[in-house]
């Protein structure tokens, strides 16, 4: 009975987290691809290694071209459609020879009887016999190791290993992502943005406004609740794209708010992206209105479970409305408030689509939050190199922060006090 549930749990809950964790410790990106890579030494690789102390002479040897006339080279030459006589000449006179420089080899080729006239053709022919390790794609590590052994026969073993490691084009395991996140200046800024975004949206809308509305509606005639509940659900059930367009229409220049502001003589501009303050207000409100309905419905339900007689009792005891709310109602709302806070913190931490479709983190990067940054890093950016590894590392941090926060909330709201001993004893 339990196993299907466990399999589902494993597939849909643990697998994403496990994969994210695994990816977070790789340098996977568009460049590396997600499959296995090949081994290629580029001038860039060498330059990078030289900064890390690769000996000058080894670099030079790897970079140097070598030309060897052998069976493989000859076959390649035939396949490339070279003049048959020329190939026969090469085979007859030069087989087994090796040259250290292009100049020497070309001179040797030109002296052959059937050598073509044009220098261009001779250079092309020379290239076929080139055996440089540079810029060549090797499928396995061993193939490149062989090529290196020829190129730098006296290079130290560990130097060669270093070259082999650096030449791998696939993803490798590394903690580099976390080092980068920890040292990058941008990280702190995005963190602060996220903290501000989540706490402001939570406090003002998801808990604050929702609680305020729930309590207000609680004191109003019954029918209003249904109407309001539906009204406040609208942002949640509206397709996100429509909702985003609505906000654009609402806040962009020529939109509803700027025109209204102009009428009354207030500064009128594109509120969504025109200034840091208005961008924040827009972003927090548009996310807040989506989240407020959740709290409103949950809080309204919780309010209705408070026995009417308790409220009557408090009034008879002399409590004013405000005292009734503060001393009787709010203390009994601790659990729903905790739940909404925790749940909404998680959704806000992870949400980016609304922001991406509206302020897109702007103006500049002033409203860029962690999830949006992770999304851009891993899945959507203009430079074209999607850094899956770094993005996963950022996502993993979100998961860890979310988990840690829920523990903090439980302590903060003294969950242990809320869970009293079970009423049914075993």
């Amino acid at each position, binding site marked *: 009975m339990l196993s299907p549930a466990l399999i589902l749990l494993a597939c849909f809950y643990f697998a994403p987290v496990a994969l994210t964790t695994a990816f977070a410790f790789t340098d996977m990106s568009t460049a590396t691809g997600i499959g296995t890579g090949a081994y290629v030494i580029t001038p860039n690789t060498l330059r990078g290694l030289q900064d890390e102390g690769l000996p000058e002479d080894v670099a030079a040897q790897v970079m140097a071209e070598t030309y060897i006339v052998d069976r493989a080279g000859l076959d390649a030459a035939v396949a490339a459609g070279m003049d048959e006589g020329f190939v026969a000449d090469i085979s007859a006179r030069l087989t087994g020879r090796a040259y250290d420089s292009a100049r020497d080899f070309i001179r040797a080729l030109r002296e052959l009887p059937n050598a073509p006239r044009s220098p261009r053709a001779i250079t092309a022919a020379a290239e076929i016999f080139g055996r440089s390790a540079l810029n060549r794609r090797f499928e396995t590590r061993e193939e490149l190791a062989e090529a290196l052994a020829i190129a730098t026969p006296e290079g130290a073993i560990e130097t060669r290993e270093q070259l082999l490691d650096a030449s791998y084009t696939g993803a490798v395991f590394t903690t580099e992502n976390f080092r980068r996140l920890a040292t990058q200046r941008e990280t702190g800024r995005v963190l602060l943005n996220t903290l501000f975004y989540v706490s402001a949206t939570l406090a003002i809308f998801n808990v604050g406004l929702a609680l305020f509305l729930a309590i207000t509606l609680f004191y109003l005639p019954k029918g209003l609740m249904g109407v309001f509940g539906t009204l406040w659900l609208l942002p949640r059930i509206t397709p996100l794209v429509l909702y985003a367009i609505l906000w654009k229409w609402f806040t962009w220049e020529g939109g509803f708010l700027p025109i209204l502001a102009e009428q009354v003589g207030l500064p009128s501009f594109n509120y969504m992206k025109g200034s840091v303050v208005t961008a924040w207000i827009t972003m927090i409100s548009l996310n807040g209105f989506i989240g407020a309905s959740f709290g409103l419905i949950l809080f309204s339900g919780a309010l209705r479970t408070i*026995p009417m*007689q*308790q409220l*009557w*009792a*408090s*009034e*008879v*005891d*002399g*409590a*004013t409305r405000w*005292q009734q709310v503060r*001393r*009787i109602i709010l*203390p*009994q709302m601790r659990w729903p408030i905790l739940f909404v806070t925790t749940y909404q913190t998680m959704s806000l931490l992870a949400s980016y689509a609304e922001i991406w479709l509206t302020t897109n983190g702007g103006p500049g990067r002033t409203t860029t939050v962690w999830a949006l940054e992770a999304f851009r890093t891993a899945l959507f950016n203009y430079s074209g190199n999607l850094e899956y590894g770094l993005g996963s590392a950022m996502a993993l941090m979100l998961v860890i922060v979310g988990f840690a926060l829920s523990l903090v909330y439980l302590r903060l709201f003294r969950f242990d006090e809320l869970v*009293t001993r079970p009423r049914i004893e075993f």
Partner: protein
Amino acid sequence: MRLHLDNFTKRFDGNPVIEGMNFVVEDGEMLALLGPSGCGKSTTLFAIAGIYRADGGRILFGDRDVTNLPSQRRNVGVVFQNYALYPHMSVEENIGFPLTVGRIRRDKAEVARAVREIAELIHIEELLARKPAQLSGGQQQRVALARALVRRPGILLLDEPLANLDARLRLEMRSEIRRIQLETGITAILVTHDQVEAMSMCDRVAIMERGRILQIGPPTELYRAPVNRFVAGFLGNPPIVFLEGRTAGQGSFAMDQGLHLPLPPRLRGLPADRPISLGIRPEHFGTGGTAQATGRVTFVEPQGRETLFDIETAPGVILRSVQPAREDVGVGDIVTWPIDVDNLLAFDAEGTRL
């Protein structure tokens, strides 16, 4: 404080629940509102507390008209049927709550002193640190009472305070509430549908039926001289037995089934052949009197101190008798027992007592 309901009316969604109710509770008196479920007892109580608005008439506390005052400013103490304790507060905070809200600021020491004082009166000093969930029903009841009294209210209102307690505890709390009411000298109204509770705890009892007070007076008066059949039938356990018949010659009563009984002397002047019903309480049959009835015992119920009998005196006519415990009579026996004619109650066709 004297309480006066003057022509009080209450409607819910246009349906009148209480119509033109009048009564007075004197200062220091305890009145019971007794009646069947749904007759409007709680409604009356909540209107006095200010929880419900009156739709007509006046409510006076002493000389003060409080009809339009919100409950916060009426200074009444209410004990609700399910106690309505605040679950998130300790007992001490629950009792102190009325002193910490409202417009008057009291310092902590003063509140603590008042709470301690009332806790001593109600005998719950050792429970002050607990939460309501950690109390038994009787203890919760006491806490609710303490909370209702801590502000020294002018009037104490109790809505079926004993309904949720077991029989023993009910007995104990009955005398406790009365003791506390007498000690504090507070004017109180007790809502109940238990006649024993009403009669044993209160100075006067008001019998209600469908939003009207039928009779109000000391318990013994209601029992001895009920104004109508409803009151007579509501009070008394085991209940009174009504016999339907007609007046016959020489001040007697005759049933179609053949039973004949003399009427009490004060009713001998009734004209003949009037339909009336005769009420015989069980304690007035089989214990002494001038008339007699003969019948077969159909049911015996020993109750320890007393024994209950059902006697079939004519086909389908069953009289009930309660007597000091006796074992000499069994089911099937034919007995002839006296009837105390002076204490018989007679009602006319409309149910009014004659």
